[in-house]
């Protein structure tokens, strides 16, 4: 049977072309119209060059600079005509939907064959043509479906389609509707190329493609400074990672003589063309550097929180469910190579664990609903790398899979909230939305339970097995870090939940009257993803409950490190502990954040709105310190000093101090060095011919001397 795999990425590409073309034609027509209007308004001016004096031709833009806010429906022009919107919607969703149907048509029979014959299932490889041939090395345009890419393909297409559908409603009023769908389709194409690639260079094409789309979509509101800046930050940070990635690819070439994924099998059988342990370590570290950039790990995570400047469906699709997990996919894909360099795996594990706890602690101090989710994503990605680092690659991929569902659901839910509140993203100005937006409330509750790791929701199974693997591998410190992170995760997620949905609304009554539940195109994806957050966990039940389907399915593609068997009793105990920690986090959040007794005033200090109700509740219940400290202010200070302040200080320090000083400092320092070199280069280009001739003569003398000295 001939599998038309190439059609899967080709369909979104077609969508991109159609949407792009329609958008271009319409845009050009509008520009023409604006140009004519401009000419009418400025009849005297010809083709002058003094553009400084020209006023903007296409309507004045009010320049909001509320940092980090997704101005959802902020108009950059009039809404598109309905026919055009219909076209963009149908093409955008249709092509991706078709690709999904096609993928599942291929995936389901393939999965069946894998499950029925674990060892014998061969990857499906479809070669279109030879792309580059150097010497004996050939790089093909070839697609590959094996267990690993099948897993990625399934959720990329499925979640992708849902988010496209959601965007139809969410982006309705945007002037850039067509452009948005064109970019989104281009993203799907690139992501599918990344997932289906049969060699590293092709994977790299997809890798760069998703990076470009991410850049374009973060900067979607390009007339906003913060959006453009965020796009730039993402771009710059990712280049650092890409540098490692390119060198890593060359390294793989040097080690195995091929960049085809057959090197995985060679690595498994330890057949290297050349290479020392140090060489293998270096290659793994370089590839991991690439993964760190794409998957926002320390120290390259800084771009992801800023990336929330893009529209919310973009945050859900690219910056939560799919693109950012590409790094994990890369590490899992090269798992056999990493297993040859245990030190590299240790590096992966520690970076993952460090990122997980760092991001989670920062998440504790955020008030922007999307920022909480962004740091949560970084933290969860850290978990995935932790799993890979302790050798449980299949479990890491399982977490990628479950995370795609519940995190997409959370983001789309937050989008729905933002939509309902007309672009308010500050949780201090929310509250009491449970009744007004019931569908959003319920789906977000389910996915919050999933990410917090409450049985039987999806996150429980994947996260618990990550912790279990760390424990079984004897990495007790990593295990402890993961456990603390789990507690923090549960806390900040339910802090978010309480501040958003519980209690009473904290905005003005006038705003309250406008709150509305989102349209069906937005709630239907929410329901489906919510169901996914409940169900996907059962695909990977821990071994104690019988067979782990996920691990078994992935075993032909990814490696596994041998771990000590732990007794069933220990495993049950570990589950109980992680459940207890998550429960404690949720309990604390419920106690401290009632969401009542306050009205939001934009300039107010955070503790006025957050800590005081929490403090009230805390002290009324315990009744000890409450009597000692008479007034509210002292209570606040007490609770601040005792509990929240250390947390927040750490969080704020890590966020402000580490981020701003260390990371930005590093970036600035390297920028300074480059600038210095640039000045040096320009210094020699004085403009004077005699100096030019002097450099010439110096060059000749230098080369002569160089040869002489050799």
């Amino acid at each position, binding site marked *: 049977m001939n599998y038309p795999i190439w059609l899967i990425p080709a369909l979104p590409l077609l969508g991109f072309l159609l949407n792009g073309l329609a958008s271009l034609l319409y845009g050009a027509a509008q520009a023409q119209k604006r140009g004519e209007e401009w000419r009418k308004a400025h009849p005297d001016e010809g083709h002058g060059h003094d553009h400084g004096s020209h006023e903007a031709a296409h309507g004045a833009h009010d320049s909001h600079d509320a940092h980090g806010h997704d101005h959802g429906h902020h108009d950059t022009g009039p809404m598109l005509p309905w026919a055009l919107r219909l076209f963009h919607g149908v093409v955008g969703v249709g092509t991706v939907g078709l690709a999904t149907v096609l993928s599942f048509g291929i995936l389901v029979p393939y999965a069946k064959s894998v499950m029925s014959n674990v060892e014998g299932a061969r990857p499906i490889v479809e070669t279109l043509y030879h792309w580059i041939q150097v010497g004996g090395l050939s790089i093909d345009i070839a697609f590959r479906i094996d267990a690993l890419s099948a897993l990625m393909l399934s959720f990329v297409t499925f979640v992708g389609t849902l988010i496209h559908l959601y965007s139809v409603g969410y982006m309705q009023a945007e002037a850039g509707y067509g452009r948005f769908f064109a970019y989104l389709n281009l993203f799907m194409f690139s992501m599918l190329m990344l997932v289906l690639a049969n060699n590293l260079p092709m994977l790299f094409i997809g890798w760069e493609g998703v990076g470009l789309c991410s850049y374009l979509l973060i900067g979607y509101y390009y007339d906003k400074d913060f959006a453009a800046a965020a796009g730039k930050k993402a771009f710059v940070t990712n280049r650092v990672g890409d540098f490692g990635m390119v060198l890593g690819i060359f390294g793989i070439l040097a080690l195995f003589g091929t960049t085809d994924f057959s090197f995985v099998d060679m690595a498994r059988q330890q057949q290297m063309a050349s290479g020392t342990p140090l060489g293998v370590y270096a290659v793994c570290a370089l590839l991991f550097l690439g993964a760190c950039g794409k998957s926002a790990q320390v120290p390259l995570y800084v771009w992801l929180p800023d990336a929330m400047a893009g529209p919310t469906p973009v945050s859900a699709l690219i910056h939560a469910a799919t693109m950012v997990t590409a790094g994990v996919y890369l590490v899992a894909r090269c798992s056999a190579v990493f297993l040859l360099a245990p030190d590299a795996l240790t590096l992966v594990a520690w970076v993952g664990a460090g990122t997980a706890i760092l991001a989670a602690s920062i998440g504790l101090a955020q008030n922007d609903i999307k920022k909480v989710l962004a740091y949560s994503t970084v933290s969860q990605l850290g978990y995935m790398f932790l799993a890979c680092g302790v050798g449980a690659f299949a479990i890491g991929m399982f977490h990628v899979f479950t995370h795609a569902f519940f995190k997409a659901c959370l983001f789309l839910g937050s989008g729905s909230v933002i939509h309902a509140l007309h672009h308010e993203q500050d949780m201090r100005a929310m509250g009491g939305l449970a009744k007004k937006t019931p569908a959003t409330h319920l789906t977000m509750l389910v996915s919050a339970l999933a990410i917090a790791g409450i049985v039987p929701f999806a996150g429980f199974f994947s996260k618990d097995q990550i912790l279990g693997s760390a424990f079984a591998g004897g990495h007790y410190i990593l295990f402890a870090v993961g456990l603390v992170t789990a507690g923090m995760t549960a806390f900040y997620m339910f802090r978010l939940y309480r501040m958003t949905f519980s209690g009473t609304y904290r905005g003005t009554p006038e705003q309250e009257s406008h709150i509305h539940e989102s349209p069906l195109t937005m709630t239907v994806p929410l329901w489906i993803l919510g169901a996914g957050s409940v169900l996907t966990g059962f695909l990977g039940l821990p071994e104690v409950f019988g067979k782990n389907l996920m691990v078994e399915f992935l075993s032909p593609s990814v490696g596994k490190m041998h771990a000590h068997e732990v007794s069933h009793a220990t495993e049950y105990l570990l589950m109980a502990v992680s459940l207890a920690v998550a429960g404690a986090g949720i309990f604390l959040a419920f106690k401290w954040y009632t969401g009542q007794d306050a009205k939001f005033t934009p300039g107010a200090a955070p503790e006025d709105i957050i800590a005081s109700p929490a403090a009230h509740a805390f002290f009324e219940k315990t009744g000890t310190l409450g009597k000692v400290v008479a007034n509210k202010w002292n209570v606040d200070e007490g609770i601040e000093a005792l509990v929240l302040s250390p947390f927040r200080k750490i969080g704020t320090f890590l966020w402000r101090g580490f981020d701003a000083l260390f990371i930005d400092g590093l970036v600035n320092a390297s920028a300074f060095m480059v600038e210095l070199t640039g000045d040096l280069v*320009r210094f020699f*280009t*004085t*403009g*004077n*011919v*005699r100096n030019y*001739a*002097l450099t010439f*003569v110096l060059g000749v003398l230098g080369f002569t001397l160089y040869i002489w000295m050799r």
Partner: protein
Amino acid sequence: MITLTHYVGLSFLLFSIGVTGVLIRRNLLTVLMSIELMLNAVNLNLIAFSRQLGDLNGHLFAIFIITVAAGEAAIGLAIIVSLYRLKGSVNLDDAAEMKG
């Protein structure tokens, strides 16, 4: 007895004088003459080698160089004239608008 070494040494001296002229002179005309000096050093070299080797190729090359140098001078002078018309001087330091 004047040997090949003398010729080559003289040629090197001439070439160095030419190079120095380009490096230190501001007047474009003088620079042009310095470049001619460099070319003549080359010619001297070629003729000396040609004579010593008994091979006519060197002579031939020298004649070609003289011819090309004439063309070069013509174009150089044309550029000098254009520069003078625009700037009112043939000082190379005045033609340093573009830099960086």
